[in-house]
């Protein structure tokens, strides 16, 4: 099967400094691809390039075998949806109102959603377990609920690729797992392909089919979690001593960050 998305030799720079230099990879259908790397390694930039907000000066991106540059903005928005790290609504939009905004790229000149749009929004809310929240104000929700609503909005775009930019950063462990479980089930049932940026490396390793480790704007390694997450690669790229062993249950790599101060606990003074 043809990949959903192919990147070949993608370069990008904001001003003088190149922040992406020659990125090659592909996203397969139904795959969860974990994007990891230190701060400033270009993860968010890469996502913004894939969703077409930033234009690349050099390289090629193919979305379903057609160059991304030949798509109109709205066409991209119907195929690729982005879930931001967090989203602040200054005014109290209800959860339903936020979710149905996902229909924006599908509306023509007539600025109102029809029955079909409402049906799609409700279906997305059912899938993300946010239907009960429909009338609540988006600003009253907890972090985990809010992320589920933003995922519902992405589903309402009826995109087949979903990009998530650190969706679990502000969540506690239970809600982190909930979000990963949700994404995992959506790829299975809805045939979505997902790129997820995450700093929860051990957790992501349990869910991602493959992982891509970015370093200084280049692909350091891409492959199955066990190939990418080794003590050697992680400690080199993150410049931080780590221990990698196996999660006894999932058998996926498990990361322990080591203190630079050596072994043992510090004594209290």
């Amino acid at each position: 099967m043809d990949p959903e998305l192919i990147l070949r030799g993608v370069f990008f720079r904001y001003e003088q400094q190149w922040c992406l230099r020659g990125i090659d990879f592909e996203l397969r259908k139904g795959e969860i691809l974990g994007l990891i790397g230190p701060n400033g390694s270009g993860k968010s930039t890469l996502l913004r390039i894939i969703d077409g907000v930033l234009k690349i000066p050099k390289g090629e991106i193919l979305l379903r075998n057609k160059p991304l540059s030949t798509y109109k903005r709205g066409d991209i928005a119907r195929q690729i949806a982005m879930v931001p790290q967090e989203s602040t609504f200054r005014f109290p939009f209800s959860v339903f109102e936020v979710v149905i905004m996902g229909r924006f790229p599908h509306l023509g000149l007539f600025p109102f959603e029809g029955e079909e749009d409402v049906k799609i929004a409700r279906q997305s809310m059912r899938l993300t377990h946010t239907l009960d929240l429909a009338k609540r104000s988006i600003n009253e929700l907890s972090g985990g609920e809010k992320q589920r609503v933003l995922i519902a909005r992405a589903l309402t775009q009826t995109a087949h690729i979903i990009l998530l930019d650190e969706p679990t950063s502000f969540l506690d462990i239970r809600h982190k797992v909930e979000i990963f479980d949700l994404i995992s089930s959506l790829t299975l049932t809805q045939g979505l392909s997902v790129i997820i940026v995450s700093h929860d490396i051990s957790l992501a390793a349990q869910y991602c089919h493959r992982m891509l480790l970015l370093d200084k704007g280049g692909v350091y390694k891409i492959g199955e979690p066990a190939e990418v997450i080794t003590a050697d690669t992680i400690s080199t790229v993150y410049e931080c001593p780590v221990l990698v062993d196996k999660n006894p249950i999932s058998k996926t790599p498990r990361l322990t960050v080591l203190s630079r101060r050596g072994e043992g606990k510090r004594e209290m003074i």
Partner: protein
Amino acid sequence: MRGSEDQGITLVKVIVTGLILLGILIIIILISLSLGPAKVSLRDILAWSIGHGALDQQAWMIIYKIRLPRILLAGLVGFSLSLGGVVFQALLRNPLAEPFILGISSGAAVGAIIGIVFGFGFHLGVPLLSFMGALFTVLLVISISSRQGGLESATLLLTGVIVNAFFTAVIMFFIATTSDSRLHSMLFWLYGDLSQSKYIQLSVSLPLILIVSGIIYFFSRHLNLIVGGEDTALQMGVEVELVKWVSFLGISLITGVVISFSGIIGFVGLIVPHLMRMLLGPDHRLLIPASAIGGACFLIAADTLARTIISPSELPVGVVTAFLGAPFFIYLLKQRGSKWTQS
């Protein structure tokens, strides 16, 4: 009030709400026509307005020549300022924004005050200078804060505040150095004065206001997305910079025109959008028309009070809007807590 929101905003809902508000507007206009130093009964006005029966010569003069143009202008000013408020609150993602926040009012005031100091007329010279002052300020603020074609909200706000402070100093300079009757004119201009209303002002501003409102309405669902974050809006296919430029310039243009006729009337552009948002929700497809018509209602009512409450004398209408608006606003704030503005 927001019972059926799980069906979203529909065209029917917008039209029904619009018609209800227009009905309220017409009632307010009719009541306002009947109020004033010379009594004209509401029944006579009703008969006259639907073409049954004529008013006597004197009543007709008062209604048609004096009260009606003033009421209609008050309506247009309220309409424009509330429209400006709701759009600026969305674009700047700031609940405190109002149409004057980019310094346009102080720029207009400097123009008007220069006009008054040098004895230009209230029908052409003062409005013209005030409009030029407003336009100059907006272009100044925008050119200072735009970077590579982008308008960044925080920079715009800061620049607006600083330009405002500078022009306020200029205004104070003129006030401090003027001592004759022109001082009274200046103060009235600074707090809003609709007593100089003429039909010609309506025909100048109405087409412009209609065009700008139409464009802004077209952008209403774009504004919904911008409120949720510019990045998301961009990703969904909103031309964020285009929406910003067109809206800032369009709103500044109509604000500049209407305040050149009315002087500075505060509070309308802040309170009416908030009130409507509480009643109808934050979706701009409903909020924009509701705020605009609501603003017209509010300002006509306020101006009616301004010209009748200490009759035969008059208050500046800005005094009434702030005097009534501020306590009401605080009451609502206490009632609703932070539910409708919290981040």
